[in-house]
Protein backbone atom coordinates (compact mmCIF):
# COMPACT_ATOMS: atom_id res chain seq x y z
CA UNK A 1 0.00 0.00 0.00
CA UNK A 2 2.69 2.50 0.98
CA UNK A 3 4.64 1.50 -2.09
CA UNK A 4 1.58 2.19 -4.24
CA UNK A 5 1.19 5.59 -2.60
CA UNK A 6 4.82 6.38 -3.22
CA UNK A 7 4.60 5.35 -6.87
CA UNK A 8 1.48 7.41 -7.42
CA UNK A 9 2.97 10.47 -5.79
CA UNK A 10 6.14 10.06 -7.85
CA UNK A 11 3.99 9.95 -10.98
CA UNK A 12 2.16 13.07 -9.86
CA UNK A 13 5.46 14.88 -9.29
CA UNK A 14 6.86 13.78 -12.64
CA UNK A 15 3.75 15.13 -14.32
CA UNK A 16 4.39 18.60 -12.94
CA UNK A 17 7.87 19.04 -14.32
CA UNK A 18 7.54 21.24 -17.36
CA UNK A 19 10.73 22.25 -19.10
CA UNK A 20 9.51 23.69 -22.38
CA UNK A 21 10.37 27.38 -22.71
CA UNK A 22 7.72 29.80 -24.05
CA UNK A 23 8.22 32.59 -26.62
CA UNK A 24 10.42 34.50 -24.18
CA UNK A 25 12.87 31.58 -24.02
CA UNK A 26 13.03 31.64 -20.22
CA UNK A 27 13.99 28.27 -18.78
CA UNK A 28 12.44 27.67 -15.35
CA UNK A 29 13.05 23.94 -14.86
CA UNK A 30 10.87 22.92 -11.87
CA UNK A 31 11.50 26.16 -9.98
CA UNK A 32 7.98 26.40 -8.52
CA UNK A 33 8.26 22.95 -6.96
CA UNK A 34 11.58 23.39 -5.14
CA UNK A 35 10.63 26.93 -4.09
CA UNK A 36 7.29 25.78 -2.71
CA UNK A 37 8.91 22.86 -0.85
CA UNK A 38 11.33 25.29 0.76
CA UNK A 39 8.58 27.77 1.71
CA UNK A 40 6.44 24.96 3.10
CA UNK A 41 9.24 23.57 5.28
CA UNK A 42 12.32 25.79 5.38
CA UNK A 43 15.27 23.57 6.31
CA UNK A 44 18.75 22.69 5.08
CA UNK A 45 17.50 19.89 2.80
CA UNK A 46 14.83 21.91 0.98
CA UNK A 47 17.19 24.88 0.69
CA UNK A 48 19.94 22.77 -0.89
CA UNK A 49 17.42 21.32 -3.35
CA UNK A 50 16.23 24.77 -4.35
CA UNK A 51 19.80 26.08 -4.62
CA UNK A 52 20.79 23.09 -6.79
CA UNK A 53 17.78 23.80 -8.99
CA UNK A 54 18.84 27.45 -9.45
CA UNK A 55 22.37 26.34 -10.37
CA UNK A 56 20.88 23.81 -12.79
CA UNK A 57 18.79 26.48 -14.51
CA UNK A 58 21.89 28.63 -15.03
CA UNK A 59 24.09 25.79 -16.29
CA UNK A 60 21.34 24.60 -18.64
CA UNK A 61 21.03 28.08 -20.14
CA UNK A 62 24.81 28.39 -20.44
CA UNK A 63 24.88 25.28 -22.63
CA UNK A 64 21.68 26.00 -24.59
CA UNK A 65 21.92 29.30 -26.47
CA UNK A 66 18.15 29.46 -27.12
CA UNK A 67 17.38 29.23 -23.39
CA UNK A 68 17.54 32.32 -21.18
CA UNK A 69 18.04 32.60 -17.42
CA UNK A 70 14.72 34.05 -16.16
CA UNK A 71 14.50 37.30 -14.20
CA UNK A 72 15.58 37.00 -10.58
CA UNK A 73 17.40 33.66 -10.75
CA UNK A 74 20.96 35.07 -10.58
CA UNK A 75 19.96 37.38 -7.72
CA UNK A 76 18.20 34.64 -5.79
CA UNK A 77 21.23 32.37 -6.03
CA UNK A 78 23.48 35.27 -5.06
CA UNK A 79 21.39 35.84 -1.94
CA UNK A 80 21.72 32.17 -0.94
CA UNK A 81 25.51 32.43 -1.37
CA UNK A 82 25.48 35.60 0.74
CA UNK A 83 23.60 33.81 3.52
CA UNK A 84 26.23 31.05 3.33
CA UNK A 85 28.95 33.66 3.83
CA UNK A 86 30.29 33.33 0.28
CA UNK A 87 30.53 37.04 -0.40
CA UNK A 88 32.59 36.86 -3.60
CA UNK A 89 30.12 34.51 -5.25
CA UNK A 90 27.23 36.64 -4.02
CA UNK A 91 28.68 39.80 -5.57
CA UNK A 92 29.34 37.95 -8.82
CA UNK A 93 25.73 36.74 -9.12
CA UNK A 94 24.22 40.08 -8.06
CA UNK A 95 26.24 41.73 -10.82
CA UNK A 96 25.12 39.09 -13.32
CA UNK A 97 21.50 39.94 -12.49
CA UNK A 98 22.19 43.67 -12.94
CA UNK A 99 23.93 43.29 -16.30
CA UNK A 100 21.35 40.81 -17.64
CA UNK A 101 18.37 42.82 -16.37
CA UNK A 102 18.95 46.57 -15.90
CA UNK A 103 15.47 46.74 -14.26
CA UNK A 104 17.04 45.17 -11.16
CA UNK A 105 19.44 48.09 -10.58
CA UNK A 106 17.83 49.55 -7.42
CA UNK A 107 17.41 46.18 -5.70
CA UNK A 108 20.91 45.00 -6.61
CA UNK A 109 22.38 48.24 -5.23
CA UNK A 110 20.63 47.51 -1.91
CA UNK A 111 21.91 43.92 -1.92
CA UNK A 112 25.50 44.95 -2.71
CA UNK A 113 25.40 47.43 0.17
CA UNK A 114 24.24 44.61 2.47
CA UNK A 115 27.10 42.44 1.20
CA UNK A 116 29.74 45.03 2.01
CA UNK A 117 28.51 45.74 5.52
Amino acid sequence: MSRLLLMLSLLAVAGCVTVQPGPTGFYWSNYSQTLYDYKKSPNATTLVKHKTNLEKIISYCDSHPQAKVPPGIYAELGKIYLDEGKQDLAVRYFNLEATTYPESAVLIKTLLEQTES
Partner: protein
Amino acid sequence: MMSNIYKSTVVRLRIVRIGLVALLSVWVSGCATGPSGPQYLSKQEAFGTVYSERPKSILVVPAVNQSTAADAGNYYSATIAKPLTEQGYYVLPITITDQILNQAGISDGAQLLSVPAKRLGELFGADAVLYVTINLWDTNYFVLGGNVTVKLEYRMVSTTTNENLWRYKDQVVVDTSGSGNNGLLGAIIETAINTSTQDYLPVAHQVNSRSIYTMPYGLYHPQHGQDGIVRVVNPGNLVTVDVE
Protein backbone atom coordinates in the same frame (compact mmCIF):
# COMPACT_ATOMS: atom_id res chain seq x y z
CA MET B 1 -57.89 11.24 -10.06
CA MET B 2 -56.22 9.29 -12.84
CA SER B 3 -56.59 12.16 -15.28
CA ASN B 4 -55.08 14.54 -12.76
CA ILE B 5 -51.98 12.40 -12.48
CA TYR B 6 -51.87 12.09 -16.26
CA LYS B 7 -52.15 15.86 -16.67
CA SER B 8 -49.42 16.66 -14.18
CA THR B 9 -47.14 14.09 -15.82
CA VAL B 10 -47.68 15.74 -19.20
CA VAL B 11 -46.97 19.16 -17.73
CA ARG B 12 -43.84 17.82 -16.07
CA LEU B 13 -42.67 16.23 -19.31
CA ARG B 14 -43.27 19.52 -21.11
CA ILE B 15 -41.22 21.41 -18.55
CA VAL B 16 -38.44 18.88 -18.92
CA ARG B 17 -38.63 19.27 -22.71
CA ILE B 18 -38.49 23.06 -22.57
CA GLY B 19 -35.59 22.79 -20.18
CA LEU B 20 -33.74 20.44 -22.52
CA VAL B 21 -34.29 22.74 -25.51
CA ALA B 22 -33.06 25.72 -23.49
CA LEU B 23 -30.01 23.79 -22.33
CA LEU B 24 -29.25 22.63 -25.85
CA SER B 25 -29.48 26.15 -27.27
CA VAL B 26 -27.20 27.48 -24.56
CA TRP B 27 -24.76 24.69 -25.32
CA VAL B 28 -24.89 25.32 -29.09
CA SER B 29 -24.46 29.10 -28.73
CA GLY B 30 -21.62 28.45 -26.30
CA CYS B 31 -19.89 26.48 -29.02
CA ALA B 32 -20.57 29.03 -31.74
CA THR B 33 -18.83 31.86 -29.91
CA GLY B 34 -15.32 30.78 -29.10
CA PRO B 35 -12.79 32.63 -26.95
CA SER B 36 -12.36 35.19 -29.75
CA GLY B 37 -16.07 36.02 -29.87
CA PRO B 38 -17.24 39.63 -30.04
CA GLN B 39 -18.21 39.71 -26.36
CA TYR B 40 -14.52 39.64 -25.43
CA LEU B 41 -12.70 42.93 -25.06
CA SER B 42 -9.35 43.67 -26.64
CA LYS B 43 -6.38 44.21 -24.33
CA GLN B 44 -6.17 47.82 -25.54
CA GLU B 45 -9.85 48.47 -24.68
CA ALA B 46 -9.54 46.90 -21.25
CA PHE B 47 -6.05 47.95 -20.17
CA GLY B 48 -5.12 50.93 -22.34
CA THR B 49 -2.92 52.62 -19.74
CA VAL B 50 -0.48 49.68 -19.83
CA TYR B 51 0.22 50.56 -23.49
CA SER B 52 0.81 54.24 -22.76
CA GLU B 53 2.81 53.70 -19.57
CA ARG B 54 4.71 50.57 -20.64
CA PRO B 55 5.79 49.22 -17.24
CA LYS B 56 8.81 46.94 -17.47
CA SER B 57 9.33 45.66 -13.95
CA ILE B 58 6.88 44.26 -11.42
CA LEU B 59 7.14 43.88 -7.66
CA VAL B 60 4.97 40.97 -6.47
CA VAL B 61 3.88 41.52 -2.87
CA PRO B 62 2.57 38.86 -0.45
CA ALA B 63 -1.04 37.80 -1.01
CA VAL B 64 -3.97 38.90 1.09
CA ASN B 65 -5.30 35.49 2.01
CA GLN B 66 -9.00 35.45 2.84
CA SER B 67 -9.42 31.76 2.12
CA THR B 68 -9.52 28.98 4.68
CA ALA B 69 -6.36 27.39 3.24
CA ALA B 70 -3.37 28.63 5.24
CA ASP B 71 -0.99 27.50 2.50
CA ALA B 72 -2.72 29.29 -0.38
CA GLY B 73 -0.33 32.26 -0.21
CA ASN B 74 2.66 29.96 -0.68
CA TYR B 75 1.05 28.28 -3.68
CA TYR B 76 0.41 31.69 -5.18
CA SER B 77 3.87 33.15 -4.64
CA ALA B 78 5.67 30.00 -5.82
CA THR B 79 3.84 30.01 -9.17
CA ILE B 80 3.30 33.68 -10.06
CA ALA B 81 6.77 34.65 -11.33
CA LYS B 82 6.79 32.22 -14.23
CA PRO B 83 3.61 33.37 -16.03
CA LEU B 84 4.52 37.04 -15.42
CA THR B 85 7.94 36.62 -17.01
CA GLU B 86 6.47 34.53 -19.84
CA GLN B 87 4.21 37.52 -20.45
CA GLY B 88 7.38 39.59 -20.90
CA TYR B 89 7.90 41.35 -17.55
CA TYR B 90 10.91 41.66 -15.32
CA VAL B 91 9.75 40.29 -11.98
CA LEU B 92 11.87 41.29 -9.00
CA PRO B 93 13.07 38.11 -7.21
CA ILE B 94 10.14 37.36 -4.90
CA THR B 95 12.13 35.42 -2.31
CA ILE B 96 14.39 38.46 -1.83
CA THR B 97 11.68 41.14 -1.88
CA ASP B 98 9.64 39.02 0.56
CA GLN B 99 12.67 38.82 2.88
CA ILE B 100 13.18 42.59 2.76
CA LEU B 101 9.49 43.20 3.51
CA ASN B 102 9.71 40.63 6.29
CA GLN B 103 12.62 42.49 7.88
CA ALA B 104 10.34 45.54 7.89
CA GLY B 105 7.73 43.49 9.75
CA ILE B 106 5.50 42.82 6.76
CA SER B 107 4.56 39.22 6.03
CA ASP B 108 0.93 39.58 5.01
CA GLY B 109 -0.32 41.48 1.98
CA ALA B 110 -3.02 43.16 4.07
CA GLN B 111 -0.31 45.15 5.89
CA LEU B 112 0.71 46.73 2.58
CA LEU B 113 -2.68 48.01 1.48
CA SER B 114 -2.11 51.34 3.23
CA VAL B 115 1.35 51.81 1.70
CA PRO B 116 1.24 53.79 -1.58
CA ALA B 117 2.53 51.81 -4.57
CA LYS B 118 4.76 54.79 -5.34
CA ARG B 119 6.67 54.27 -2.08
CA LEU B 120 7.17 50.57 -2.83
CA GLY B 121 8.33 51.54 -6.30
CA GLU B 122 11.03 53.80 -4.86
CA LEU B 123 12.23 51.16 -2.39
CA PHE B 124 12.51 48.35 -4.92
CA GLY B 125 12.87 50.16 -8.23
CA ALA B 126 9.69 48.66 -9.73
CA ASP B 127 7.41 50.24 -12.35
CA ALA B 128 4.34 48.41 -11.01
CA VAL B 129 3.18 46.47 -7.96
CA LEU B 130 1.07 43.32 -8.25
CA TYR B 131 -1.39 42.73 -5.42
CA VAL B 132 -3.59 39.67 -5.08
CA THR B 133 -6.44 38.70 -2.82
CA ILE B 134 -7.15 35.00 -2.48
CA ASN B 135 -10.91 34.94 -1.92
CA LEU B 136 -11.41 31.21 -2.01
CA TRP B 137 -9.33 28.04 -1.95
CA ASP B 138 -11.77 25.23 -1.25
CA THR B 139 -11.08 21.55 -1.46
CA ASN B 140 -14.04 19.24 -2.01
CA TYR B 141 -13.60 15.54 -1.55
CA PHE B 142 -16.16 12.99 -2.70
CA VAL B 143 -15.84 9.20 -2.54
CA LEU B 144 -15.06 8.90 -6.24
CA GLY B 145 -13.87 12.36 -7.08
CA GLY B 146 -12.86 15.73 -5.86
CA ASN B 147 -12.11 19.26 -6.91
CA VAL B 148 -10.49 22.49 -5.85
CA THR B 149 -12.23 25.81 -6.31
CA VAL B 150 -9.95 28.82 -6.38
CA LYS B 151 -11.02 32.43 -6.62
CA LEU B 152 -8.46 35.21 -6.98
CA GLU B 153 -8.53 38.94 -7.55
CA TYR B 154 -5.46 40.68 -8.97
CA ARG B 155 -4.51 44.35 -9.12
CA MET B 156 -1.45 45.76 -10.84
CA VAL B 157 -0.79 49.35 -9.82
CA SER B 158 1.51 51.93 -11.40
CA THR B 159 4.24 53.22 -9.10
CA THR B 160 4.38 56.52 -10.97
CA THR B 161 0.66 57.38 -10.75
CA ASN B 162 -0.69 55.00 -8.05
CA GLU B 163 -3.44 54.16 -10.59
CA ASN B 164 -4.64 50.68 -11.45
CA LEU B 165 -3.06 49.40 -14.65
CA TRP B 166 -4.62 45.96 -14.79
CA ARG B 167 -7.30 44.38 -12.65
CA TYR B 168 -8.71 40.92 -13.08
CA LYS B 169 -10.57 38.32 -11.12
CA ASP B 170 -11.05 34.69 -11.92
CA GLN B 171 -12.52 31.57 -10.43
CA VAL B 172 -11.55 28.10 -11.55
CA VAL B 173 -12.64 24.66 -10.49
CA VAL B 174 -10.00 22.03 -11.02
CA ASP B 175 -10.95 18.37 -11.02
CA THR B 176 -8.65 16.39 -8.77
CA SER B 177 -10.27 13.00 -9.41
CA GLY B 178 -8.05 10.14 -10.44
CA SER B 179 -7.83 8.93 -14.01
CA GLY B 180 -10.07 6.02 -13.13
CA ASN B 181 -8.08 3.30 -14.85
CA ASN B 182 -7.34 1.28 -11.74
CA GLY B 183 -10.80 -0.03 -10.91
CA LEU B 184 -13.01 1.08 -8.06
CA LEU B 185 -10.50 0.72 -5.23
CA GLY B 186 -7.76 2.29 -7.34
CA ALA B 187 -10.01 5.24 -8.13
CA ILE B 188 -10.86 5.75 -4.46
CA ILE B 189 -7.19 5.64 -3.47
CA GLU B 190 -6.21 7.91 -6.31
CA THR B 191 -8.88 10.48 -5.45
CA ALA B 192 -7.81 10.43 -1.83
CA ILE B 193 -4.21 11.07 -2.81
CA ASN B 194 -5.07 13.71 -5.37
CA THR B 195 -7.44 15.64 -3.16
CA SER B 196 -5.96 15.40 0.31
CA THR B 197 -2.20 15.25 -0.10
CA GLN B 198 -1.94 16.38 -3.68
CA ASP B 199 0.43 19.15 -4.38
CA TYR B 200 -1.67 22.02 -5.65
CA LEU B 201 1.12 23.71 -7.60
CA PRO B 202 -0.39 22.77 -11.00
CA VAL B 203 -3.72 24.22 -9.82
CA ALA B 204 -2.08 27.45 -8.67
CA HIS B 205 -0.09 27.67 -11.87
CA GLN B 206 -3.22 27.18 -13.98
CA VAL B 207 -5.12 29.89 -12.10
CA ASN B 208 -2.28 32.40 -12.32
CA SER B 209 -1.57 31.68 -16.00
CA ARG B 210 -5.22 32.08 -17.02
CA SER B 211 -5.43 35.59 -15.62
CA ILE B 212 -1.92 36.82 -16.43
CA TYR B 213 -2.59 35.76 -20.03
CA THR B 214 -4.90 38.79 -20.41
CA MET B 215 -2.13 41.22 -19.45
CA PRO B 216 -0.56 43.22 -22.30
CA TYR B 217 2.84 41.79 -23.27
CA GLY B 218 5.88 43.28 -21.55
CA LEU B 219 9.27 44.25 -22.93
CA TYR B 220 10.72 40.73 -23.00
CA HIS B 221 7.91 39.27 -25.08
CA PRO B 222 8.58 39.19 -28.85
CA GLN B 223 5.12 40.71 -29.49
CA HIS B 224 5.55 43.58 -27.02
CA GLY B 225 3.37 46.53 -28.03
CA GLN B 226 1.63 44.58 -30.81
CA ASP B 227 -1.06 42.71 -28.88
CA GLY B 228 -3.52 45.57 -28.25
CA ILE B 229 -6.09 44.18 -30.68
CA VAL B 230 -6.10 40.67 -29.22
CA ARG B 231 -9.56 39.93 -27.79
CA VAL B 232 -8.97 37.76 -24.75
CA VAL B 233 -10.45 39.86 -21.96
CA ASN B 234 -13.68 38.54 -20.52
CA PRO B 235 -15.63 41.64 -19.38
CA GLY B 236 -17.21 39.54 -16.64
CA ASN B 237 -13.76 39.10 -15.07
CA LEU B 238 -12.91 42.79 -14.99
CA VAL B 239 -12.90 44.49 -11.62
CA THR B 240 -14.22 48.01 -11.76
CA VAL B 241 -15.57 48.65 -8.27
CA ASP B 242 -13.78 48.30 -4.98
CA VAL B 243 -15.48 46.04 -2.49
CA GLU B 244 -14.61 47.20 0.98
